[in-house]
């Protein structure tokens, strides 16, 4: 087992290095660099001035020199400074963005699961009723609405017109931190993030439950005199949830994409907003650090999961 763990850690480190090389090269292949992003075309600087700025940032060095310089510093925990935000160290900048993204994504997915499963159960139990049709139409709209449209319409109606929620940010500027303030900023983007996923979950839940409700063991439960509510909740829903759970697992990745878009629209200070902004401004240190941290988390979690599986299930080969 120890050999296995050591080997996996070694492979993980190699994967991180490979990831860093790949991102580094891809960034350099993209047209324009951080200094190009810095220039206002309407008030241009001379090439000499640009060259001086590049030299100060080390962007005039050969690529291998730049890469190994970055790698050497990164190994010691120094990921440098954000080019766009002169003087702001990259590592804390990236780390402080993870929480807001997880908060938005987690809340959105939680809402989607609760709303989707509840709507799916109601729709299946009241099959072919007005409620079923209404929910099915709503879910079709939810699935087919592109994220940008949902976000912008939601922003317009709930924030600008109805003023039910703030139009952006995570906290009221200048106000003391409070959980209600945080929740008031969170609820609208989380709800909008949940719509598409809730609609998908609802459809899966409905069809899965309809299938289960026709099973013999459900009929048997009813024949035994179990109340209909418990038949649905205890006997049918639990079994119908299996494919839905699989769906939820596989849509978490899609939720990350949706969260990134919503972060831009709602100015939510998460990883998505940070990365989109960093790519737009070619802020190399931020992109490299953010990519590596996300990559490291994924590799670490995969490793931990595999080790846990190997520990609890002897049938799984680790060697």
């Amino acid at each position, binding site marked *: 087992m120890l050999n296995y763990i050591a080997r996996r850690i070694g492979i993980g480190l190699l994967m991180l290095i490979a990831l860093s090389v790949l991102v580094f090269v891809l960034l350099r292949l993209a047209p324009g660099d951080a200094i190009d992003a810095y220039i206002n075309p309407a008030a*241009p*600087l001379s090439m000499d001035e640009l060259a001086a700025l590049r030299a100060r940032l080390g962007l005039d060095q050969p690529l291998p020199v730049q890469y190994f310089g970055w790698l050497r510093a990164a190994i010691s925990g120094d990921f440098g400074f954000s080019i766009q935000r*002169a003087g702001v160290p990259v590592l804390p900048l990236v780390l402080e963005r993870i929480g807001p993204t997880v908060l938005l994504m987690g809340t959105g997915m939680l809402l989607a699961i609760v709303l989707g499963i509840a709507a799916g159960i109601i729709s299946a139990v009241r099959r072919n009723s007005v409620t079923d049709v209404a929910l099915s139409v709503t879910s079709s709209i939810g699935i087919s609405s592109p994220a940008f449209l949902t976000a912008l319409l939601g922003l317009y109606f709930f924030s600008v017109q109805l*003023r039910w929620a703030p139009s952006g940010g995570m906290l009221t500027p200048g106000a*003391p931190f409070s959980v209600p303030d945080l929740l008031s900023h969170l609820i609208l983007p989380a709800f909008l993030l949940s719509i598409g996923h809730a609609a998908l979950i609802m459809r899966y839940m409905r069809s899965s439950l309809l299938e289960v409700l026709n099973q013999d063991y459900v009929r048997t439960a009813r024949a035994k005199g179990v109340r209909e509510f418990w038949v649905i909740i205890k006997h049918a829903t639990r079994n119908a949830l299996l494919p839905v759970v699989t769906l939820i697992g*596989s849509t978490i990745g899609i939720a990350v994409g949706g969260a990134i878009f919503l972060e831009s629209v709602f100015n939510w200070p998460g990883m998505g907003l940070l990365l989109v902004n960093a790519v*737009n401004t070619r802020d190399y240190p931020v992109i490299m650090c953010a990519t590596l941290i996300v990559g490291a988390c994924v590799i670490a979690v995969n490793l931990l999961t595999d080790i846990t599986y190997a520990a609890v299930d002897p049938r799984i080969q680790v060697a």
Partner: protein
Amino acid sequence: MHIRTITRALAIGGLLLGATALTTPAFAQDVKTITGGFDVGPGGFPKNFNPLAATGGFTWLNTYFEPLVIYNAGLNAIEGDLATDYTVSDDMLTYTFTLAEETWHDGEAFTSADVKFTLDLIRNAASGSVFTGRLGKIANVEAPDDRTVVVTLSEADGGLLSVLAQVMILPEHALASIAPESIATSTWWSTTPIGTGPFKFTRYVTDQYVELAADEDYRRGTPKVDRLINRYFENPAAAVAALRAGEIQFTYVEPEDAATFAGNEAFRVIEGDSYVVNYIGFNQKVDLWKDVRVRQAFMYAIDRAAIIESLYGGAAKLANCGYVAPHLVPEGLNDYAYDPERAKALLDEAGWADINGDKPITWLTYYGSPQAANVMAAVQAMLAQVGVNVVPRVVDVPTYNGTVYQENNPDWNEFPLIYAGLQNGPNPAGINVGLNKSQLPPVGANIMRIEFDDLSAAFDAAIGETDASQVDARWQDVCKVMNEELPWATMWVANRYGVASANLVDFVWTPAPAGGPFAAHPELWDIK
């Protein structure tokens, strides 16, 4: 398998959540606050705190830093700011500034030593300042006493005061201990900066907002509001939503958004000259544009008046040279009124069929707004009518700059034609960098590689003019040469807009290029 997937997802979430902590310090709430999107739009420079490295965002920077001199709010005259008065010698080589009595936000006295420190720091290329080149004619800075600064130039520079208006004076006692090469990456700028302006830096919540507090000791009086907050927005539309929702009291808006506020008594639309001339640039390294008749054909083929009327709602001024300020534009210029038949004739005379014919020509731009897309589509259609086939290519700013600023063996065919803008005011010398042959890369930003002798001579004469009464006449000469030789097909100077809540009192803003700065007097701003 699905359980494993979920386990992994939950574990990733937990790991990421554990890596961070949400902390926000508490602040008093019952205070008068103006919140705005001061860095939204083309004049903004969000997340930049270092005024030495700023290419925009001066409206906001000027609320806590101050320059020696500053443009008035009409952008038509320079007046004293930290300098109460200044004199210029007859040969325009010596500038003497008399300084105001002021203290830094930490209570230290502001003196001439701070001005000398700032200008010397900028002149040191290691500081990474974008002003190093622009202040290159300064030969010496002296501080004969605490309230006097003497700046001596190696040669006359008519644009010096205009540049100094963007140079924010910095505290020597706070920055002298930082090596010039480390100053650009110092955390001082975004954590504990001190200036002399009416507001003091309080805190920066990363990528969300910056908060300032009133400086009660400000020399022009205590500001009327207690706090100023500058919120960051990823795009103007988000800022407009916040404005409509009452969360902010001011933001820059796109022209199409400005129209939606018209007649709404809860808001005040502020309209002003952008001081950016839009032009179609001809890459002179490409053989297509050598004949002036081809360039003239562009001017005649494009119905600029119709575009201004229909796509800008009339909110733009026709440009027949690089600027439109009446005192800089001479009588008798060719107005290049729309005349497609004449355009065709000129192209025929020039032999356009042999030069290029109907082969597609890439037309590069960094303008990505819907309005710009409409404008380019209209121009494309008009040029097609006379037999010129241009194909717009819209890229982001880094890609554009990376293309036109290529250092080694540029591929000229990547940008044979551009649609761009260049700052043409308040000081018209701003366009010199894009047109004078002395500004060819790498020395300058003449990215279209224009080498017209008459035009360069006219620019040199205007910039080097030492007789103040002749300066406007020299710039009129430049305008006349531009109008005749057409280094660019000049289009227009469009208006730009801001929208302020009607609750703001004595709020001054103008869409100055790079955000100014201009004498906005934030200490007088109030909110009902």
